[in-house]
């Protein structure tokens, strides 16, 4: 598939936006300016970008604990995201959700999720609604290699196939679940080997190559929109930072060599190199993009820091739609 310059530059832009947002979040976390847990997406940018570039705001995605990258790729705005990470009233979740529950229904992002595997069944529900309403939309579930060992993933994959729903199962295989290697928790090497057990096609792609991911996603989405059911895409990728936070806390669950080898394959820099080689864009073009987006990040940090905190007195707001007096009695 020949990708137009626009599409390629769009893929690049999505990746850079994720990288800059995550690097900024990491810095703020190390400066103790972000409360709670932080799971950075750095290194995996090609997966969210390659998939979301073929989705519209009306298509839905479900995410994981590592969800900022997915929201950025789906069109999330820096200001509301940074404000949410800081727990401010202007955040996407009004400070109630934070990093692990960041979401924005306007762009079809049905939430990061603190429960491993829990997003996939919800994506199946969105896919069901798409088919039910015959609206031509698809739902994509992002999940990690480790999450494919949990029951919810299995039930979701089987249900989507049994009901032939427009769902994309996007596995980001970064070879680790927290601090434990994938090989210690499953007897298979490729997650894609699970696809046949549900009766859906499965394909392995280089998760560090945004074009490869995009092409696979375009095909899977087209298939789903044609009413031919779900697909599983396994993207082989790697997270550059620790499971949560930034530093590896000197943990030796991954060797420096292994990390170095993967960083060599940085999805953004390798892609920029290819585009320059192909004459599609110049270093100067990219520098301009990075500079522009860096400004956006600085603006977002400022916005978040200047934003008001949520009103503690309103802690009970948003538990229910339309509180009734009787509900008040439960408080």
């Amino acid at each position, binding site marked *: 598939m020949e990708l137009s310059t626009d599409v390629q530059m769009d893929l690049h832009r999505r990746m850079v936006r994720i990288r800059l947002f995550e690097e900024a979040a990491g810095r703020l976390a190390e400066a103790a300016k972000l409360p709670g847990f932080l799971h950075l997406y750095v290194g995996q940018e090609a997966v969210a970008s390659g998939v979301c570039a073929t989705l519209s705001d009306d298509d839905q995605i479900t995410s994981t604990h590592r969800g900022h990258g997915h929201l950025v790729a789906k069109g999330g705005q820096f200001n509301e995201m940074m404000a949410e990470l800081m727990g401010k009233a202007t955040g996407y979740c*009004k400070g109630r959700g934070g990093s692990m529950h960041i979401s924005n229904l306007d762009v079809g992002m049905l939430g990061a999720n603190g429960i491993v595997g829990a997003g996939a*069944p919800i994506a*199946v*529900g969105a896919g069901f*609604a798409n088919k039910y309403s015959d609206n031509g939309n698809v739902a994509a579930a992002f999940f990690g290699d480790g999450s494919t060992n949990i029951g919810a993933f299995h039930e979701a994959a*089987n249900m989507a196939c049994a009901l032939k729903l427009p769902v994309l199962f996007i596995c980001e295989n970064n070879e680790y679940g927290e601090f434990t290697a994938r090989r210690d928790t499953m007897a298979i090497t490729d997650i894609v080997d699970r696809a046949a057990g549900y009766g859906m096609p499965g394909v392995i792609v280089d998760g560090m190559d945004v074009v490869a991911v995009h092409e696979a996603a375009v095909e899977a989405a087209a298939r789903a929109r044609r009413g031919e059911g779900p697909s599983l895409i396994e993207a082989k990728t790697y997270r550059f930072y620790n499971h949560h936070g930034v530093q590896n806390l000197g943990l030796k669950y991954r060797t420096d060599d292994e990390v170095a080898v993967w960083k060599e394959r940085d999805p953004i820099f390798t892609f920029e190199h290819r585009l320059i080689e192909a004459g599609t864009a110049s270093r100067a073009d990219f520098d301009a993009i990075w500079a522009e987006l860096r400004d956006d990040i600085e603006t977002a940090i400022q916005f978040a820091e200047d934003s008001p905190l949520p009103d503690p007195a309103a802690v009970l707001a*948003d538990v229910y*739609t339309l509180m009734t007096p*009787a509900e008040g009695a*439960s408080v």
Partner: protein
Amino acid sequence: MTRKLTYVQAFNEAVRQEMAANDDVFCAGEDIGAFGGVFQSYAGLQAEFGKRRVVDTPISEQAIIGLGVGAAVTGLRPIVDIMFMDFICVAFDQIVNQAAKLKYMFGGAATIPLTITTGGGGGLSAAAQHSQSLEALLCHIPGLKVVHPSNPYDMKGLMTACIRENNPTIMIKHKRLLGMSGEVPEEPYEIPLGTANVLRVGKDVTVIGWGRMVNEALTAAELLAADGIDVEVIDPRTLQPLDSATIIESVKKTNRAVIVHEAVRFGGLGAEVAAQIQEEAFDYLDAPVGRIAAPFSPVPFSPVLEAHYLPSVDDIVAGIRAAVARPGA
């Protein structure tokens, strides 16, 4: 115009009428299609509305709830069935950590008009994994609403309200009441969630019960009337949110209260009701708030054991007598 329907027919009619009125309403669950569900709650609906709107699912309770959550947050009004209440444990994360919390975690942006239906209660020798009354677990979870009708009329009105409700609700059908018959209006009607029903007016003691037990309490009340003990019987109907105001008001009048439920006593919803009564009506109480409930054991299989295990009319009568026996202020 009303006529007699059974409890399960009333449920079925509420679903049919709401489905006919609103294409956003659909049903999904195990064996609910051609078969109509193991309790026949969904009988005839697939024939009437087709496979698009009445969906047989795999045996995958987590994905069944997830299907409902995802479809609800994207605009539909799903009714998903968990065959036996005991099986909510299999889907507990999707109910407790997803359905109940999504709206809040999203800062209010999400709306989850989801109805989860299930069959609860004992009395069928169905043993420890098919007989539980687990309402207390659900009522402790912010974001959920919990409904448990005790008769056909309430069933239709409450089920209609659940389907029209914009929050995740759990409709608990009592398995022993499925065949209970009663007058039910043909036209659709709603019983607002969170409104208790005073089934019997009395002045000596207030008995609060739900599901099958409130009917047993009514029988007990009639027996005690013969002895001149005048019992007020309240059915909260909705367990979360609980209509505490109606309960407190009654106890302030009768000065005595007894709670009856099928769930085990320790940590049951009766504890919350008792705690609220003594908080809100402390100066009015002439006796401790009593609790009649199951002992601290799984539900036994053998009929002789289960009959002893479940609260009976005799147990309720004894509990009420104990409450009124104490000299008043």
